[in-house]
């Protein structure tokens, strides 16, 4: 009965919605940006390309605290960028919901970019050339040939990066904080619940995030067959 109460309780739903909302908005950004960057880097050769590719992949291996640290340094109130943002929006980005979105974008981007790049690289170049010969502009080649042919990689990249955005913890905690109803996502809420000894609440949240993650991974497995 107690758990039923919990399910109807705003206390339970708030971090669930914030997490899903954050992951969806971050996911949309990451999917579009990762696909475009992956496409460009799979096709173009230029000086310093390896350096850029290395930097783009760094968030995968860096500890989330390091990412949080950099986010605070770059966008905090003491930096020019941070002051610029504050001047435009009349408030700092740090400790807002957008900060959570931003942290999620940074950690999820490499997964999308990497999948997209390997998907686009594996396309037989002569198929894209054939489309050019058939009169397609570069944009139409991208839309009608490259995207459909890389669709499996793009889908798996999308799901992985969405799942990563949903599970983001360290950088979010540092950059967006843990404000209930505002920036408190599922992972931070679970951490706090356990810390406060509220095991029943922690359980329901754990079940919720495992459920969502399981569904996404399940879809991924089916689609990759």
């Amino acid at each position, binding site marked *: 009965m107690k758990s039923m109460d919990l399910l109807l309780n705003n206390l339970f739903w708030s971090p669930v919605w914030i997490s899903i909302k954050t992951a969806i908005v971050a996911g949309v950004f990451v999917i579009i940006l990762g696909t475009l960057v992956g496409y460009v880097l799979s096709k173009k050769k230029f000086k310093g390309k390896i350096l850029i590719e290395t930097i783009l992949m760094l968030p995968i291996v860096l500890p989330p605290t390091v990412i949080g640290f950099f986010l605070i340094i770059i966008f905090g109130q003491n930096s020019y960028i941070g002051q610029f943002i504050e001047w435009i929006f009349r408030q700092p980005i740090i400790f807002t919901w957008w900060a959570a979105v931003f942290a999620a974008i940074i950690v999820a981007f490499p997964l999308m970019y990497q999948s997209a790049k390997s998907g686009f690289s594996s396309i037989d170049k002569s198929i894209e*050339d*054939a*489309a050019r010969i058939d*009169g397609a*502009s570069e944009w139409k080649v991208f839309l009608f040939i490259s995207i459909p042919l890389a669709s499996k990689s793009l889908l798996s990249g999308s799901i992985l990066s969405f799942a990563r955005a949903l599970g983001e913890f360290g950088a979010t905690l540092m950059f967006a904080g843990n404000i209930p109803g505002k920036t408190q996502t599922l992972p931070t809420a679970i951490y706090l619940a356990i810390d406060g000894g509220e095991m029943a609440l922690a359980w329901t949240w754990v079940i919720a995030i495992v459920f969502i993650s399981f569904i996404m991974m399940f879809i991924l497995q089916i689609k990759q067959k």
Partner: protein
Amino acid sequence: MPQLKLENVSKWYNDNVCAVQNVSLQIEKEEFVVIVGPSGCGKSTLLRMIAGLEKASSGKIYLDGTCINELPTRDRQIAMVFQNYALYPHMTVYENLAFGLKMRKIPKVEIDKRINEVTKNLKINGLLNRKPQSLSGGQCQRVALARAIIKKTKLFLMDEPLSSLDSTLRLQMRREITNLHNKIKITSIYVTHDQSEAMTMATKLFVMKDGVILQVGPPMNVYEKPNSIFVATFLGSPGMNILRGKLMDDTFMIGKSSIKLPMDKYGYLLEQGYCNKELLLGVRPEHIVQAKDNESNILDIKITHVERLGDVSLIYSFFECQPIVAKMNDFTMKFTLDLDRIHFFDPLTEKRVDSFNDE
């Protein structure tokens, strides 16, 4: 006016690797041109520059008198068949054929009409709803051809289109492409490393090596009067035999053997100052023939290996320690050269030097 004209076209990669070097050529309307050469000779790069898939580093390309160097591929009015077919794997045969027409904003009624016509012609009308992965190699090749001719373009490019087919199918498609060309008369450029494809299909042949076009002409002309050792040995199956020797007045000495030459063969060479000089004698395998009883130039040949092909046999042997291949119907033990069909090449320039009036 030639349909396609190339003026000193070159292609450099990274400023130091030259794939195509100062190629100039002209292709007339309705010709079926074959560019033949070993792999890596730059023939595909040349074709891709004509298609606009690669940019020429220098030189000019004209289509119907207009310079198309800066024209993007999509606006060039060309069709192309690729080595691996390059069909769109996620589309049905119908969609593959319709794609280029849709891109050119041709109305659906016209698209259906053309698809109907072309697929009947190439006998693939039963495959319209199939995806490429469910088709055989030959069917894919037909779809690729259909996709190219359906657009009714000015120029038809083919990049080794038959090299991934098995040999029976290759012979069949070779004939079909020739028939198709006779029917629709579209100006075609066909790139291949297969000299027999080149010989049988071309109305005009370009032999290419190391980024340079070595010889141009009707296939039989090039075959019978190769201008260099490379062309002589590349064309023909097997290619021309080359024997090193020395010209002594009317006699060509190969090792200890001597071949007495007819006046028309040695006269010109003597005039050119080749007396007592090293020369290379070229003779095609089919021009090594059975010696008649009164023949004076009998070759003392040591046979090492015989390949029986059914209709003819290839006789691999050594003559004065130099390898030589003969192609004969009847197996014989007495060989001589058909002296009317031999050629001489300069060992330094590797150019043919025996005649002055065949260009």
